Every structure is written in C-alpha cells, then in structure tokens.
C-alpha cells in the first residue's frame, strides 16, 4: 500500500488518540502524585501477576479456538433462527458480572443442571471452582465476541471467490488452505489480544469462580490498594503494570497480523456451493448446536429467575432504566466520534500497532481512572455533578477497543480495494466518508454502536465512585437491591437490564445489518 494512497485525514485520528492517552495518563499521574512512601512488589504481587497473565492467556486461547469452528459453521450455513443466534452472541458480553456468574452457576454450579444430571445418572459431581471456572466464565463472556469478529472476517471474502471455488470443484480442505486459513491468521491475533486484555482486568469473575485467594488478580490488588490500604502509590504502580502488560500483548498481536486481502467483489450474497455434503453439515450443526446451548442455557436461567422477581422490582428502579438508556445513547455518540477517525487513521497507517492506544481504556483499571479523575475534578467542582459525564466518557473508552477491532479490518479492506478508484475520481474528505466508507462500514458501525450501547447499560462503571442517591443507574440499583437481601428483586432488575441492553444492541446491530451492502 502506498503511503497516503487514500485521502483519509490523519489529523482527526491522531487528535482522538492523543485525547484518549491524555485522559488515561492524567488519571494515572493524578493518583501517583497523591502517593506517599515507596513501593516495592511483594512476592504476593508477583504471584498475582503470574496468575493474571496465565488465566488471561488460557481464556483468550480457548475463546479463539472454539470461535473458529463456530464462526466457520455460521458462515457456511443458512438456517431459520441464524440471524437471531448471531444477535444472541452479543448477550453474555453485556451482562453485569454477578448476573452472568449466577447464570453460569445455575448450569455448572454445585447444584446446577449439569451436576443434577450427573447425580441422577449416578456419576461423580464436578466442581467448577478453580482455574477451570475462571476460564469457563471468560469463554462464556468472550467466545461470542470472538465468533462475531471472525464471522465478520468470513463475510469480507467476496462472494465471487466462493463461486470460483465451486466451479473448480475444490474440496473443503483446499478451501480451508486457500481462503479460510489466511483469514484466520488475519483475524485471530486481534481477537486474541482483545480477549486477553478483557480477561487481564477481570476481578469479580476470577475471584468468585477461582475458589479462593489463589485466584488473585492484579485488579483485586489494585482494588485492595485503593479501598482497604489507601496506598495510592501501590495502586498507581500496579495500574501501570497492568497497562504495560496489556499494551505489550496488544502491540505484539497487532504486529503479527499479516496483510492479506481477497480483493474487491460485487458485494453479492455469499452462496456456498462447496459445503453441501452431509459430513460437512454434521460438523457445522454440531458446533452451532453446542455453542448455542452453552450460550442459551445460562441466559435462560437468568431470564427465569428474573421473571420470578420482576413483580418485586420497586417502581423507581424502572425509572433508573431511563437514565441508563440515555447515558448509553450518549456513550454511543461519544464512541463513534472517537472511533471512526481513529479507525481511519489506523487503517491507512503503516504501523498497525497504533491501535494499541485504543486498548488503553480497557487495560486501565476503572477504579484507577475513576479515582484519578475524582482527584482532578474535586478541587474545582462537586464530582457528583460530573458523575454521568465521566461515566459516558469511561463507557466510550471501554468500548473503543471493541469498536476498533470491528471497524479497522473492514476499513483496511475498503482502503485496499477502493484506493485507486477514489484517487482517480478525486474523492476525498467528507465525500469519501459519505460515499465510500460509511456505507461500506454500516454493518460494522451498527455492531460497534450496539455493543457500546449494551455495554454502557450493563456496566457499573465509575458511577459507584461518584454517584449520589439521585444519580443511580440500573446496574447500581441492581447491586443495591442485592446488597440488601432483595435477591429476587435484583434478579428482576437484572432481567430489565438484560432486556434493555439486549434490545438496544439488537436495534443498532440490526440497523447495521439490514440494507447493508455487504451482508
């Protein structure tokens, strides 16, 4: 690709990157400035670091490993409910941690479905607590995301390639070698890096399912440093460590992504004449069925207990759903303003590793960002007045790496396929965005916006640090219900939250996929 072959202005993208880095680093510096005394890493910290990295590697590995055949199967098949299943893939991701954990335990827990079945047939029961449980939960959260990212890769192959393959009568093995393997190589490193970073900052999942203090992550140590020890120096150093590990992994993974392009096509529907035989069907059906069960059973458990508690949900908790909804919508706008120029810059620069800047928001501990900004805001204003504003910015930052991972590959593909044409026609600036980029990226924009909206509805975020009683969001209310014995009402609130987040996701995602040029 020639330097600046495509006339996307880098100025906006670079400004967005600088803005993001400044937001996060300012919080880190603010915390570090308030620190007193020296800090040394204890043996416990090193053990926590090892466990954190190890579980994140395993979680990312298994999420990506299982995502490959599931995405492949979904790409090759058309069936009733396929579209719904693909939308459902977004659901686990947007659940508040404790809700998802309870859903998983309803299936895999000590008195869950699985163990009930094992007992009924006279087998030994299995315990999910430990590294297994941590990885299981992380796969539950991230397998769907990885699947969606890979599915998008499959979609990027022009339909003409598959037509050619069918005409040449290639067996699935050859299709895998010529098309699917290069595709996987292109998508997996980015997806792996993303899941790795998500799991790196895991705290409640890792501890709750980890079965004890063996499963201590860096994030827990940061929490302890802020809350119980009020050791800000320690918190700052551990936060920095987390960012460095996440950033290192991201730079490495993004650097590994090979430049593969399948060229442009006529944006026809993909038809797969090459995979119509029974054996291939069986494999695909098996993977789709297993993934669907793994997803749907815990979600069904959450829905059932939610329905039972729905009547107990206090009326004004429904009111906070409204707050959550508009916070989510503003967060989506904030995200798009940051992500689109940034994706444009990343897709046209030679150094793909700059995408790492987008990961900063996810790699930094939310508690660190919240506390840092609290320190910054407090001398000038009442932080409670800023609570929703800060929540919106943090939501956008958290969602940014997902948005970039969704947008950048397709943006790059578009750049590679259309650069000569647009240059010859002299299309640039606003017209380039309106005529070429936005229409081609519509499915991705819809998906990214949906994910951001849903994440914002479900995330407790920094609101807990800033909020006063009048500015509660739905997740905060749910935790409050749970914290005061009202577990049934909390389950009801969780269901409202799930429906709201999922509905928002569905609307935005469907908007992107419908009328899209390249479905």
């Amino acid at each position, binding site marked *: 690709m020639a330097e600046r072959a495509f006339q996307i202005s880098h100025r906006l993208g670079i400004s967005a990157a600088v803005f993001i880095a400044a937001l996060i680093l300012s919080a880190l510096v603010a915390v570090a400035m308030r620190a007193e005394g020296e800090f040394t890493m204890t043996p416990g910290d090193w053990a926590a670091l090892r466990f954190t990295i190890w579980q994140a590697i395993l979680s990312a590995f298994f999420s990506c490993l299982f995502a490959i055949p599931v995405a492949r199967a979904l790409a090759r098949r058309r069936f009733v409910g396929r579209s719904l299943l693909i939308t459902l893939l977004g659901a686990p991701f947007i659940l508040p941690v404790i809700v998802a954990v309870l859903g998983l335990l309803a299936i895999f827990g000590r008195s869950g479905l699985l163990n009930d079945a094992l007992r009924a047939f006279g087998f030994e029961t299995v315990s999910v607590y430990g590294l297994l449980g941590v990885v299981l939960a992380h796969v539950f959260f991230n397998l769907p995301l990885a699947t969606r990212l890979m599915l998008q890769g499959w979609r990027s192959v022009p339909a003409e390639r598959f037509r050619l393959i069918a005409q040449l009568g290639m067996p699935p093995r050859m299709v895998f070698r010529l098309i699917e393997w290069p595709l996987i190589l292109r998508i997996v490193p980015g997806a792996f890096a993303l899941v790795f970073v998500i799991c790196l900052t895991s705290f409640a999942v890792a501890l709750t399912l980890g079965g004890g203090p*063996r499963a201590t992550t860096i994030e827990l140590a940061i929490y302890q440093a802020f*809350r*119980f020890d009020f050791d800000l120096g320690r918190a700052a150093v551990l936060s920095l460590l987390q960012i460095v590990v996440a950033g290192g992994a991201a730079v490495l993974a993004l650097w590994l992504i090979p430049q593969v392009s399948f060229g442009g096509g006529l944006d026809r529907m993909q038809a797969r004449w090459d995979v119509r035989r029974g054996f291939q069907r069986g494999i695909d059906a098996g993977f789709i069925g297993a993934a669907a069960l793994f997803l749907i059973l815990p979600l069904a458990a959450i829905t059932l207990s939610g329905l039972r508690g729905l009547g107990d949900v206090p009326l*004004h908790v429904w009111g906070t759903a409204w707050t959550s909804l508009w916070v989510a919508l503003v967060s989506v706008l904030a995200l798009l303003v940051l992500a689109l120029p940034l994706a444009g810059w990343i897709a046209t620069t030679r150094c793909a590793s700059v995408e790492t800047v987008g990961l900063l928001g996810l790699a930094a501990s939310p508690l660190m960002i919240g506390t840092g900004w609290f320190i910054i805001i407090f001398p000038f204003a009442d932080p409670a007045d800023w609570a929703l504003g800060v929540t919106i910015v943090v939501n956008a930052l958290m969602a940014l790496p997902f948005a970039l991972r969704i947008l950048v590959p397709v943006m790059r593909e578009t750049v590679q396929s259309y650069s000569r044409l647009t240059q010859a026609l002299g299309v640039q600036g606003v017209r380039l965005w309106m005529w070429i980029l936005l229409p081609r990226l519509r499915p991705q924009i819809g998906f990214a916006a949906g994910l951001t909206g849903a994440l914002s509805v479900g995330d407790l975020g920094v609101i807990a640090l800033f909020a006063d*009683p009048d500015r509660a969001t739905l997740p*905060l209310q749910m935790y409050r219900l749970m914290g005061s014995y009202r577990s049934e009402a909390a389950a009801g609130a969780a269901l409202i939250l799930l429906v709201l987040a999922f509905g928002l996701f569905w609307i935005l995602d469907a908007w992107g996929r419908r009328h899209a040029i390249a479905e």
Partner: protein
Amino acid sequence: MKYLAFAAGVLTATSAFAETPELTVYTYDSFVSDWGPGPAVKAAFEAECACTLNFVGAGDGAALLARIKLEGARTEADVVLGLDTNLTAAAKETGLFATHSVEADYTLPVEWADDTFAPYDWGYFAFVHNADEAAPTNFKALGASDKKIVIQDPRSSTPGLGLLMWVKAAYGDEAGAVWAELADNVVTVTPGWSEAYGLFLEGEADMVLSYTTSPAYHLIAEEDATKAAVTFDEGHYLQVEVAGKLKGSDQQELADQFLQFMVSDAFQTIIPTTNWMYPAVTPAGGLPEGFETLISPDKALLIPADKADALRDVALPEWQNALSK
C-alpha cells in the same frame, strides 16, 4: 449554574445564617438506598432540626474512608456515618475527625468509650444456613465436617475482614492452623457480601458468612423461616457501626445535634428493619417482632480498634497461605 451559585454564596455569605442550614452526611451506599434507613432518617431529622439533611453515598465502609482521605480537609462532609471498628483507628489517624458529645445508654454487648466515634448499630457475624440442617458449632468442627461454606475476601469486603478477625480473636496463634482445616470447606471466596449471599441462596454452599440478624430479614420481610444463623461456641465477632463529626465542618452544632439524634428512639427504631442490624440503644418500644427468634451468642469477641490494624497484617498472610494450598 454551579459557579453562579458559588458566586452568590460568596456575595451573600453574611446573610447565610438566615437560610436553612444544610448538613451533609457521607455514608455507605446501602444506607441511602430507598429501602435502606436513609429516607426515613432524613424525614425524621428534618422534622425536628429546621435544616436540610443531605446523604451522600460512597460504596461500602472502606470506600467511605478512602473517599474522606481523598478529599482531605476540603471535604464537604459534616458527618461520616458507616465506619466500623476495623476502620476507626485509620480514620482517627487522618486527624480530620473531632470529638463528639453524644451521651447515651448503649445496649451494646461491649463497653463503649470512644470519644471520636459514636455507635448507631451493631451485629454479630455468623454463618447462616438452612434451618432444617444440622450444623457444626465451632470452627474446628466446621473444618472437620464436609459442610461447604462461601466467604468474602478480607481484602475487599467488610464481612470478609470480620471473619478474619473472628478467627484471629478466637484462636490467636492457632488461627493459621484453623484456616488450613477450613480450606477444603471453602467453595469460593467472593469480592463482597452480595455475591456470597447470592451464591448461598442459589444453593452453591451449605453456609454463608453473614450476620445473626440475616434470618430476621427473611422472617419479617419474606415470611420465610427457613434460614437460621448458627451459634459458635468460641463466641461471635462483633461489628459495631459508628459515625463521627469532621473538624472542618462549618455546621458543628448541627452535626452534634445529628449525632445525638442518631442514638435517640426516632433514629434507632428505623434501624432494625431497614439496616437489619441491632440498634445501638434499644428503643423504648423494644425490638420488632421476629428479632426474638434470632440466636443471641453468649460471648462477644471484638479486637480493640487500636490493635485491629496490626493484627490484620498478621492474619491476612495466614489466611492467604492456608487457602492457597
């Protein structure tokens, strides 16, 4: 608007006494939730103080102290309500708190002689289980049994820290060995109370660390008598929740008035069925119906506030080592 209000405040500072005074109380989140004591306390106090009472919620007790430390002398808070005896020593060290003038006949199981913090409620930590099951009656029997428990992490949760201190107070140097015996009973350790109690209600464990008053909620609010707390013969560790006045407050008299109100019947009658703890001064009308069914331990354990910090630093590695094996 904020700046306008500020400017107006500066310009009219001399006439401020004519306006309704405002008292700002920082407390933990569940206190201010609509089903917590907050709304009723606000209404009751405002009825007699000719003032506005503002609650600001901040996480749990530990988060509350962290918030005060972050804000330092410039804090808006006049009163901080919701610290417990594990936190009061660290809170005093900040030098931000003033001595109080509260006088009351406390009905705590221990003597109270703190001149900085006044208690408003208390409770015993206890394991809660399904009432129809047999249960071990001390930590050693629990360790020897095959009962499964779920507990909270002392590094992120107040009850978790309470359990750590409970075992330490009961067993001293032997605490590490007791934890080693308990290790195979622990299903998992959760970040906070909500997660642990949620797991217990879902049937993931036979017993959960909570309070002796927990069954009262199920009995009174849900008419469900299936939950009970287990009496341990070592005695039960006590949690005393306290409030204190800030030195930097510009509402010293009002803050004193609030703290005195806090130990009066008007406040204390609200506590049992909203905070689900024992009132620090039993109101004239006694405790609500249902509380008489709760277990009342013979022996209360409490590590003095000034020794709690040092002991925690010893007990935490013991706990971590025993459960990491």
